[in-house]
């Protein structure tokens, strides 16, 4: 234990580093141009999350958090990309450039403002709880990631990046969670991980159906439903898909 106590500043710093890289990954998800990169940034973000959980599990020693880190690593770094590859292969790996509503530099600036807002918002909470240590890192960064994820959802128009935006939001909530709720019941953690997989599965299936029936995955451009009379179904000029 004394050895571990000597490591405390190192672990604090490494956790902070994981936080900084987590934030950078959030920026990456909002700003990258390619679906594949988006996924890679998400995986990187998940690794940072798992690293943070493991670091905080080492000091103070908590097997629970180590398990959380392991669960995250297995589901988000292992199973989730595999699931996506199964479901929406050509979306992730064949399509290259994706559009977004706001240009990349402006998006980054907006994301930066959201980060500052997150620090500003979380300050009173941290003061109220007289918090120190990892909370000072994880809570604001988690909140910032949440806001940036929400922004990603509004600015991205493609199905898979929107899915990744949602997953990034959940990641961010978790990132704050490993600090604010380190002793969450393990059953809840397991259920959450399971839930993420169902989420990916359902959205993947939906993306595929949208692609098959409508011929595009630019879900942000689906605006058929309006307050219009008698809905008519447009014969979707179905793009020939490579599958089947």
């Amino acid at each position, binding site marked *: 234990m004394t050895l571990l106590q000597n490591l405390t500043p190192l672990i604090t710093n490494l956790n902070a580093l994981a936080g900084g890289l987590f934030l950078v990954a959030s920026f990456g998800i909002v700003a990258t141009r390619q679906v594949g990169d988006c996924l890679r940034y998400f995986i990187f973000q998940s690794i940072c999350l798992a690293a943070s959980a493991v670091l905080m599990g080492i000091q103070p020693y908590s097997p629970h958090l180590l398990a959380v880190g392991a669960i995250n690593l297995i589901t988000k770094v292992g199973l989730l990309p595999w699931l996506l590859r199964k479901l929406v292969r050509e979306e992730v790996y064949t399509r290259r450039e994706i559009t977004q509503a706001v240009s990349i530099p402006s998006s980054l600036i907006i994301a930066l403002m959201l980060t500052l807002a997150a620090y500003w918002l979380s300050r009173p*909470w941290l*003061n*109220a709880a007289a918090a120190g240590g990892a909370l000072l890192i994880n809570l604001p960064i988690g909140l910032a990631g949440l806001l940036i994820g929400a922004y990603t*959802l509004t600015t991205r128009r493609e199905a898979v990046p929107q899915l990744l935006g949602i997953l990034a939001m959940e990641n961010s909530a978790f990132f704050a969670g490993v600090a*604010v709720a380190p002793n969450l019941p393990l059953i809840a953690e397991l259920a959450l991980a399971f839930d993420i997989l169902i*989420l990916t599965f359902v959205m993947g299936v939906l993306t595929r159906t949208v692609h098959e029936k409508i011929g595009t995955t630019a879900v942000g451009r689906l605006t058929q439903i309006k*307050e219009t*009379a008698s809905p008519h179904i447009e014969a979707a000029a179905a793009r020939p898909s490579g599958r089947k």
Partner: protein
Amino acid sequence: MILTAIIVIPLAAAALCAIIRRSPAGAIITLVGALAALALSAWADHCVITSPHHVLIEISHWIELDSLGAIILSLVAFVNVTAAIFSLGYMDFKQSGSGLRYYLNYNLFVFSMLIVPMLQEPNIVWIAVELTTLFSVLLVGFENSHEALEAAWKYIVLTLMGAAIALLGFLLLFWAARQAGAVQPYTWSGLVAAAPKMSPVLLKAAFIFILVGLGAKVGLVPMHTWLPDAHSQAPTPVCALLSGVETTAVLYAILRVLTILQASPVTHAGSWVLVFGLISAGTAAFLLLNVRDTKRLFAFSTVEHMGIILTAVGLGGMSAHLAAILQIVGHAVTKSFCFYSAGTVLLLLGTRDIASIRGLIRRAPIAGTALLLGGFAIAGAPPFTLFLSEFSILKAGLGRGEYLAVGLLAIFISIAFFAILNHVSRMVFGASEATKPSEMKCRSLPTSCKITLVIAAVPVIVLGIFISNPLHKLIVLAAISMRG
């Protein structure tokens, strides 16, 4: 045992559907499961009322049922039965395997709604709420049309975005509890007990996140845009479940958190809910004026009713809480009935376009009567439950001196009343443009739909006149528990 059985039944039904892989069998299994769940939930209600602390404990601190939960559970179980019957005749499975998909998802969806009121660990309740989205989204997009898929996508993206925000809220709630040393046992009731010791700042932050996040799923106004789309594009039985009880089940989670706040030193929680509720009710009331689609009409009405319920809860006080719970009950049974009648019209005339539905009372007397009854009931006309509850809400508000809120709410309710009845009366009595007998012709109505309309109409009519003693007791108990 009872609660476990209620949880297991829909899961078992889903498993059986997956194994048997034939849609007629799936329909029967689903219906039997629904009936069994309804019977068991009635039995569970009885146990809740008769037990000493009014709690039915299955697994201590994890699965318990109290009065408020019992009401939600029974509503879900009831609408589940009617929706299952309605599905029999309504769903027409052209593709092989689509019936399997439908009933599998249907049962999982019902499962997720049934567990929400039973679970006691708030974080797991969050998961259950998220599952209601995940299991229902494929049902919303079930018809695979452009609109249905678009609606499903909007639904999942907006509600999951809300869910992620709410997740942070729930984690902050856990943090607040941890600060106050109230982690063991971490349940709704444990939180209420520990609330006075919790940090108000953290509780407030947690509540705002939960209100905004789950509010997206309830359909509160800035985040409501998905709701009319999803609730109108889904197959009608699913619409009844979504609009009637799914929103209510999520609202239940908000009410639980609000109860914690009201037991704590936080002062303004009620007012935030009030403002949110009024904005929702008002916006929905105005949007109701120029709706062009029958199902969207009732979907916007759901937004309005959620707003009214939140307003009532925000007003605070025993009588307002009583009225709010009565409104929850009345809304669930009435809204599902409304969707069945709209679905019947869709089945008969093949359209949801309000402008082209005219003279329904002559062309399709059953559907016309049902639509008229539903319209009156959901708008809050006198003999029905919703009149009673809305009137009580206004009265409770006046009693607490909230004149502005009451005035606004009264205006919104009147606008919505006018809008709904305007649309409904034109559909039912309006002069039909079609003169040729061939255009007047309707398709025939499946028996199961008629049965559903009759069964679903019973509580709509009865509850306004007579509330049975056990139900009354449950409502009072729930209102007491909401005071924290």
